[in-house]
């Protein structure tokens, strides 16, 4: 589904990603972990071109998204993204947050989008918040709405950029629960996370990034039980 070849990204001479080759299959749930500054968020943000790669190619469903000739907006519409800081639109109600993109991109009529919004709110457990504004909601609720907003586009893959890192500890569980349900429904997911429990129980594959490369990857069982890379061993000893 996503094929990454020789992906590089440099910021003003500083090489953050140093040639990443990776293939993500439909239905996979890939957890990306690693120390801060290892490039894991940059890697994720390159997948929908929020960061413009400085080298290599990314092919999504057979289309090279790094080729400027391809319409990135249409490709992004099929890739949902959830941010660390939620990034809900504060001037719009929850319902309008969810409806905005499907309606403006003419994928749904207003009433279809309304229907969809209510369905999704039901799914993330917030059916009574349709007319609330983001600021009236807790962080956990905002992130669940952000997930609903991304799902409204019926994406083929969901990208999560540290979705629980900005949350109070007691709210982490509710967001992870929604993500787990999403995974159980068969959604393809790439999740940059510090939640080792989530990586272990939900992911089908875990990547360890260090200094701009994928230093190790494995099934979650093997990954956590028998790490090989010395940096990974050190990392796991600190976080587990």
């Amino acid at each position: 589904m996503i094929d990454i070849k020789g992906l590089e990204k440099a910021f003003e001479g500083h090489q953050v990603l140093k040639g990443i080759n990776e293939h993500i299959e439909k239905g996979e749930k890939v957890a990306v972990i690693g120390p801060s500054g290892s490039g894991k968020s940059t890697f994720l943000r390159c997948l929908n071109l929020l960061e413009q790669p400085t080298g290599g190619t990314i092919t999504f469903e057979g289309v090279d998204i790094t080729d400027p000739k391809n319409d990135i907006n249409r490709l992004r519409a099929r890739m949902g993204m959830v941010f660390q800081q939620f990034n809900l639109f504060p001037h719009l109600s929850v319902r309008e947050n969810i409806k905005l993109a499907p309606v403006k991109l003419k994928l749904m009529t207003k009433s279809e989008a309304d229907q969809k919004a209510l369905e999704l709110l039901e799914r993330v457990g917030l059916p009574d918040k349709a007319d609330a504004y983001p600021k009236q909601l807790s962080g956990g609720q905002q992130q669940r709405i952000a997930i609903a907003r991304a799902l409204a586009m019926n994406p083929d893959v969901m990208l999560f950029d540290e979705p629980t890192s900005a949350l109070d500890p007691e709210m982490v569980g509710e967001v992870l629960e929604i993500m787990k349900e999403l995974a159980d429904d068969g959604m393809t997911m790439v999740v940059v996370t510090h939640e080792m429990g989530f990586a272990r129980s939900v992911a089908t594959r875990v990547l360890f990034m260090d200094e701009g490369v994928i230093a190790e990857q494995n099934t979650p069982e093997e990954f956590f039980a028998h790490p090989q890379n010395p940096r990974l061993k050190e990392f796991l000893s600190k976080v587990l």
Partner: protein
Amino acid sequence: MEKFWADFVEKFNMAFITGDRWKLYLQGMGTTLELTVTALVIGVFLGIVVAVVRVAHDQQNPGKHNPALGIANAICKLYTTVIRGTPMLVQLLIWGFVIFKTSRNRFLVGMLGLGINSGAYVAEIVRGGLMSVDAGQSEAGRSLGLGYLHTMIYIVIPQAFKNILPALGNEFIVLFKDTSLVSSIGAAEILYYAEAVGAKTYEYMFPYIGIAVMYLLFCILFTWLQGKLERRLRQSDRH
């Protein structure tokens, strides 16, 4: 002393009462307000266009340069530099006596001159407002598949608007006072009438002080309205 008062009353009558001259001042103030509002509409429109072009240009991905946007950006930069680097009075004189020297409609020429001047300042206000919106907002919009313009129109500009409203209110007040300059090209706003009355009666004190008081009262009113609006906006922040 008695003579002083008699003189005072006579001059006052000459300035405001004789021949219903007070109506001229009101008519002039009406024109002044019309000029202010229409020039601000032009200014805001120009300002938004210029600001969006400049921000869009600066936010292009490195290595991806749209040549049309480059040209538009250069024009916008030239516009703001020239307008902000020359006195408004000189600009108005050029509009009135060089570019549109044969035009009879001095109101329209004045409105255009003021609006084009205001646009350059509004552009900087709007640009600051657009840049004050968190980058995560446009990233969220773009990640949903919305294009640059859609993201600007539905996500960034509405949020920027709240931030720029106080500065825009200020611009309105500045513009209101600056309309007095268009009397120099013969647009019949309030200063124009005050000067006409003064020229007829050879007495300038009451006409000038009279309109100064009128300007002041309107400015106090606008400032009060602006404060009210700001408090209202802050309230809706708390949602």
